[in-house]
């Protein structure tokens, strides 16, 4: 049974249909990528799954249960979360406070301190900066904080929206290595990324969106060999 299954998803903002009839699934332990050009509907898809964007059609089933009509604060308690585009850390709060908030969805918050210690182990820079306002961190450090904050609720499915966007190369390496390590720890990952080559090199499978519709899907190896990905980015559409 897939951990996440999205069936015939539509997302509409006013008169604009951002996503039309998109279906996809994520199996436990996979890294699945959603690829496509700007405005293809990738972020809208993730946001709709998480309850942040209006689902106007279709179903989202997580771990066998439909999450239809739930707000993000309820969906996150089911065990999936999103590291949003642009990091969206709380800039005036300290690093430590940002992490504390990440643990709110946990049923039992008594081991939140232990989880935080684990994050400091995994992201040593955050330990150094723990008492600093998060807004004073560099872009790469903020992205580490955003991911660590997401991990504080021990998600079974972690969705990430453009985690490497705008980062210095050494941070891009760090983020992709981290995703591989997380999969090793049993976290399933659904990833939206502009960096197609890197994403397909670590990913198991991928979906390609163009103009809000699903154009192509397959294993990461097949997608790398296909010309359809480039065609989707150029807006020609796959055949």
């Amino acid at each position, binding site marked *: 049974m897939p951990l996440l299954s999205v069936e015939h998803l539509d997302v509409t903002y006013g008169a604009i249909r951002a996503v039309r009839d998109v279906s996809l699934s994520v199996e436990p332990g996979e890294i699945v990528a959603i690829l496509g050009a700007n405005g293809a509907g990738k972020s809208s898809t993730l946001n709709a799954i998480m309850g942040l964007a209006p689902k106007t059609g279709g179903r989202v089933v997580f771990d066998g249960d439909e999450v239809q009509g739930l707000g993000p*604060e309820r969906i996150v308690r089911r065990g999936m979360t999103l590291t949003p585009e642009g990091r969206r850390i*709380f800039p005036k*709060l300290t690093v430590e406070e940002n992490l504390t908030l990440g643990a709110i969805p946990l049923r039992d918050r008594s081991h939140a301190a232990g989880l935080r210690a684990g994050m400091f182990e995994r992201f040593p820079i955050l330990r150094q900066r723990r008492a600093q306002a998060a807004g004073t961190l560099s872009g790469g450090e903020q992205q580490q904080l955003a991911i660590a904050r997401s991990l504080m609720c021990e998600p079974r499915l972690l969705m990430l929206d453009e985690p490497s966007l705008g980062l210095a190369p050494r941070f891009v390496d760090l983020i992709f290595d981290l995703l591989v390590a997380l999969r090793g720890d049993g976290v399933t990952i659904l990833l939206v990324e502009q960096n197609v080559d890197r994403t397909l090199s670590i990913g198991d499978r991928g979906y390609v969106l163009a103009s809000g519709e699903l154009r192509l899907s397959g294993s990461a190896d097949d997608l790398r060999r296909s010309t359809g990905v480039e065609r989707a980015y150029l807006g020609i559409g796959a055949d």
Partner: protein
Amino acid sequence: MDLVAQQFINALSLGGIYALLALGLAIVFSVMGMVNWAHGEIMTLSGYAMWMVTSQLHAPIVVTFLVAVGTGLVAALAMERIAFRPVRGSSQVTMMFTSFALSITLQVIFQDLISPRPRGVQLPAALSQVIPVFGLRIGIIQVTAFILVLLSLGLLTLFLRRTTIGISMRAASEDFVVARLMGIRADAVIAVAFAISGILAGVAGFLWVAQHGSVQPTTGLTPVIKAFIAAVFGGFGSLPGAVLGGFVLGFIEIMLQAWLPQAALPYTDALSVGIVILILLWRPNGLLGTVTDRA
């Protein structure tokens, strides 16, 4: 010198009340994007509760204080649940008119059910005495006011820094959407914001009514307008700004009252607001203002 020190205490006392009210407005605004114009009526309700327990039950002063604060808390929570939750997420104009309507409705209810005329609130005579401190004559009520204001600000700071719900509220005021993504419940954060604003308005109402000795349907009107000016002046959206704005406005008013010639006294408010406008021309976002994207 004597006079300066006494006016200084008066300014701290009046500014403290403005600060508490401005803080209440700012906290609700920071999580909901709404200015609650009915905030003053929470004060008025606390005042009427004081009138009832003092005139009917001859309650001791501590009980009167607790009743005032409790009334503020309950009134604010009821307002949120009954009037503001249905319009949450609506346009700013809709929320503004809702709070205006609530404010005027409550004032009319006070007029019709209680009285359009002031009701006297008798507090122990000890409160209105003056005590000599280092040769100065200091009013007990002014000192009490300042201590209560400091205590409220201290407790609120602890709450916002040390508790998970307090940290959640600060997060929600920075980015409400991502706060929900963290599992923070919108209903809870907004209810707590109103609860805090109600407690602060209850404390402010207690001090205001204790100093004026009476409560009437429009008791909350002037203070809430002053508090709004203070919050804008300090930098809307900034909680320290609201506190600073409240104290500075209190100082400006007291200083004008103390040193303006007799003939100019009716223009105290016009002059104090004029000074605020001048300062805002120099700092358009307020004293500690950062631009908020809700504003």
